[in-house]
């Protein structure tokens, strides 16, 4: 039990499942799965499981990592496909037309025990264009037949990754840069499961419901003390899973607060915020809704620009104040 970062926590989850399942295999690209915890313990999956199940060689070819892993999974071998952060949709068609559809299309015959471990950059300065993206989890959540998970801290990362590895269906697991050391939290050494589709209520409150996951959850967490100091009693919810979306606790909360603010580092249009607001709007007529999202623009490189465009803790506070105006 220590303050592990999410990568270490994920490797713990994988290591445990690999020890129990002699076939579980991970395909990945140039990022050998090695990490250390604060106590100096090192997990090196390659060293432990060798070149076949953790092949420490291979091409820059995300379609192989995904499509090959799907072929592995279809033959009854649980597989992980670890994809780099700038290629969040490089294999979108394979997920859309194959991975997500095969069970249904075959009348239930094809099992797809596949976890796609998708790195995601988030809104970092100096990268621009393709290397500072966020929000693509919403695109995957639009695909029937895949589940989508986005932890905001290492504890959730481990529990959700374990759940994903034990699921018979494909799970897309987004690991954002901001969530690696995001919210510091102790992570047990033993395996545990956080069921897919369970929200975490980070803080209870009565004035305003604030919903956000991944990098947005990290910013909301930072904003919490300020909100208190401004006298706003916010109920803070991290859905953690986008599909299945745990909408019930959010609806229950908005029934109580009458106000919903969704914060998202994805784009304004057709992002997660829309889906959450729409579902609550159908269930709670008369509530007040707001969203704070990255604009409908690619991420610019210059720090001034991208920082101004990103919903960070100060903007969460500002938005909350606006939501509280009559």
């Amino acid at each position: 039990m220590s303050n592990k970062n999410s990568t270490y926590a994920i490797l713990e989850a994988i290591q445990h499942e690999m020890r129990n399942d002699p076939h579980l295999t991970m395909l990945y690209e140039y990022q050998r799965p090695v990490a250390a915890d604060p106590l100096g313990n090192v997990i090196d999956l390659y060293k432990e499981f060798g070149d076949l199940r953790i092949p420490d060689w291979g091409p820059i070819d995300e379609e192989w990592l995904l499509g090959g892993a799907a072929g592995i999974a279809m033959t009854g071998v649980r597989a992980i496909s670890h994809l780099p952060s700038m290629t969040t949709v490089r294999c979108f068609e394979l997920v859309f037309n194959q991975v997500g559809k095969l069970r249904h299309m075959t009348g239930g015959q094809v099992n797809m025990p596949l976890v796609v471990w998708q790195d995601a950059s988030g809104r970092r300065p100096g990268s621009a264009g393709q290397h500072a993206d966020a929000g693509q989890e919403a695109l995957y959540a639009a695909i029937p037949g895949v589940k989508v998970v986005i932890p905001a801290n290492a504890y959730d990362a481990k529990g959700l990754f374990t759940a994903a590895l034990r699921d018979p269906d494909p799970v897309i697991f987004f690991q954002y840069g901001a969530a690696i050391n995001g919210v510091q939290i102790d992570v047990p050494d033993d395996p545990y499961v956080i069921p897919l589709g369970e929200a975490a209520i980070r803080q209870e409150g009565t004035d305003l419901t604030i919903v956000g996951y991944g990098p947005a959850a990290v910013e909301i967490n930072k904003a919490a003390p300020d909100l208190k100091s401004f006298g706003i009693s916010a109920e803070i919810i991290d859905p953690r899973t986008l599909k299945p979306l745990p909408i019930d606790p959010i609806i229950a909360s908005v029934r109580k607060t009458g106000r919903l603010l969704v914060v998202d580092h994805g784009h304004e249009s057709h992002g997660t915020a829309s889906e959450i607001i729409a579902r609550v709007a159908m269930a709670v007529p008369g509530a007040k809704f707001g969203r704070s999202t990255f604009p409908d623009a690619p991420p610019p490189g210059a720090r001034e620009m991208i920082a101004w465009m990103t919903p960070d803790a100060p903007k969460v506070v500002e938005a909350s104040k606006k939501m509280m105006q009559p």
Partner: protein
Amino acid sequence: MHEDKSETVMTPDEETKRPARGGVSRRNFLQFAGAVGATTAFVSKARVASAGNGWTTSLDDFPKEKLVGMYRTMLKSRTWEDTFKELFLAGKDGLYGAFHMSIGMEASSVGTISALREDDYIASNHRGHSHLIAKGGDLNKMSAELFFKQTGYNKGFGGSMHITDVSKGILGMNGIIGPQYLFAAGAGYSAKVRGTDQVAVAFGGDGSVNNGWYYSGLRNAALYKLPMIAIVENNGYQIAMPQERTNNLRNLSDLGAGLDIAYETVNGMDVLAVHTVMQRAVARARAGEGPTLIETKTYRFMDHSGLAGAKPGVLGAFGLPYRSDSEVRAWIAEDPIPKLRRQLIANDIITDAEADQVVAEVKQLVDDSIEFARSSPLTIPEAGLENVFAGTSVAASQFVGI
């Protein structure tokens, strides 16, 4: 009438689309067909020349059951598809949906798959009935799936283009061109992880070689020396587009040279030639020597999909805008099923009567499967919400639930 025309000339529903003839030379194909004709006319017990690839096969190398088995399986595929063709034409049974026939291409599917073991894998494409039948697919379940019945392989979820039998290593037909190569490479990887010597085979048409997934599947199979075999069934057309207008290689297997893997082009109208080439590829795969790329030069006697140009009781589709009838006839002259029958009889492996007996048995199986399909129950509409995820249903969001 005029409106009809604008509809049939072009709609986004490509399956019904008939582009006008491209005016391209059919030289390559006719040449090839000619070559086949010249060589396979010669039928002898000692040596059967299999044109086009320089390999020769002798019937002596094959046990009788193997030969008769290949004949039976080709016939099963032919008869099953032909029976459905007649049902579609007759407009009976309210059949609907996609329907891509392999008629004419049975030597390619049966020649390759008969060199596999039961526990090997195949990943098939939209034109895969014949692959499935060769791999031991159950005709009853196949027929029921074409009827979109509950008892079909895919419980009516898939139809003709998606038939799958995971229990028999059939990873499925697929409506998208290309993923087969990744799936087969992945299945080969899986065999290595599990320490088996299973082989995984991807099937695709000449249209599938211009796809990144083809390159990726083969290249990674080469890198990791996976027990993977790619069968490119070059039937000369991609819907109505002639193959030579889509790729600058004359023999599509030549890509193998650039990937540094084993590759061969074989006469896909000769089941024994195909089988021989495939046996070598399988042996290489099981020995850990990596992938092989095989091109089978073949032809579909019918149209790309559906019934255009087809007539009841007539083999082949004629009068299509993108190919000449004489080209079709040249290839029908190479029909691998009567060809094998002639060889078997000429070489005293079976008698004419025994061959007829096989025909009758196969016909019975097929007819029974149609009866099975007919008498099976329709799907339940609500079932469409199942099988998205294991063990649950999704919401019926088409209804506003206020």
